[in-house]
C-alpha cells in the first residue's frame, strides 16, 4: 500500500494547525485593539498584515513539504 498521499495530507493538515491558531489569535487581538481604539486602524494595518503574513508562512512551508512528498 502506498502511504505517500497520507503523508502529504498529514504534512499540510498538521502543519496548518499551528498557523491556524496563531492567525486566529492575531486577528482576535487586532479586532480587540480596533474595538477599543478605532482611530488606530491606519497605524495597525501594516503591522497587522505583516504579522499575518509571517504567521501564514509556516503553513506555506508545510504546503511546500506536502507538495514535495507528493511529487518527488
Amino acid at each position, binding site marked *: 500500500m502506498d502511504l505517500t498521499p497520507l503523508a502529504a495530507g498529514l504534512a499540510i493538515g498538521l502543519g496548518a494547525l499551528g498557523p491556524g491558531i496563531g492567525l486566529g489569535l492575531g486577528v482576535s487581538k487586532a479586532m480587540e485593539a480596533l474595538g477599543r*481604539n478605532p*482611530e*488606530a486602524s491606519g*497605524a495597525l494595518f*501594516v503591522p497587522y*498584515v*505583516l504579522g499575518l*503574513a509571517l504567521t*501564514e*508562512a509556516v503553513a*506555506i*512551508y508545510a*504546503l*511546500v513539504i506536502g*507538495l514535495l512528498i*507528493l*511529487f*518527488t
Partner: protein
Amino acid sequence: MPEEAAEQGESLIHVAIKAETLFHLGPIAITNSMVGTLITTVLLVSLAWWASRNHAVVPGRLQAVLEFPVDFLAGIVRAQHATRWRAILPPVLTIFLLVLVANYVGLLPGVGTIGVHVVENGHEAVAPIIRPASADLNFTLALALVAFVLFVGWGIRANGLRGYLKETFIANPPYMTPLMTPIHIVSELSRIISLSMRLFGNVFAGEILLAVMLALTFAVIPVAFLGLEMIFGAVQALVFALLTLTYITLAAAGHGGGHDEADDSRDHDADDLGVRAGAH
C-alpha cells in the same frame, strides 16, 4: 512525474508543480509561465505608457485607478522613511504592481484551462498555454533575489561597506560572534526562501483550489472562490512589497536597528494619535 499523478486523479484537476515547456526557441525552452509573465509585462508597460502620456490634473477614471496604489504605498513608505521615501518607493511599488498584475492574470478566464498537447517524458500531457507568472517558483525566486539585493544594498548604503560587514559578521558583544553570526546569516538567507515560497505557495495553492472547486461543485459556486482569490492576490502582492520595505527599513536603520525603529514608530504613532485627539 507530476503528469502521472495528475492523470491518475480527476482529469479536470491538473497539478504540475513546475511550468510545462510549450516549445523550444533555439536552445531556450519557452514555458507557459513565460507566456504569463509576458502578458503581465505587456499589460503593465502599456498601462504605464498610457498613464505617462494622458495624465490630467483632475484624474479620469483609469487615472484614478492607477493613482490609487501609488498613493497608497507612497503613504506607507513615507510614514517609515520621511527623508528617503523617494528613493525607496519605486522598487517597492514596482514589486507590488508586478506581483499584483501577475496574480490577477492568473484569474483571467482561459488561463490554466485552455491547453495544448505536449509530449513530456515520453508520454502525452495537456499543458495550459498560459500559467500565471507567480505560480512558477522561478518568477517568485527571482523577485525575492531582487528584494535581497535591494535590502543588502540599502544596508551598505546606509552604514557603508565596512559598517555593514561589521554588523553582519560580528555580534554586539564580540564574544557572542561564533554563536550569533551563523544564526544571523541563516536568517538573512531564509528571507529569500520565505519570500519566494510564500508567494509561490499562495498562488499555486489558489490555482489548485480553483481547479478542485470547479471539479467538485457546479455552476456559480466556484465564483465565490474566484472572489476569494482576488482578495488573496492583492494581499500577497501587498505582503511581498511590505516585507521588502520592512527589510529595507531594518537594513537602513543600522546597528541594532530593529528595536529602536519599533520604539520610534510607536512613540510617533502615540504622538500622532495625541494630536488627532487634541484636534477633535
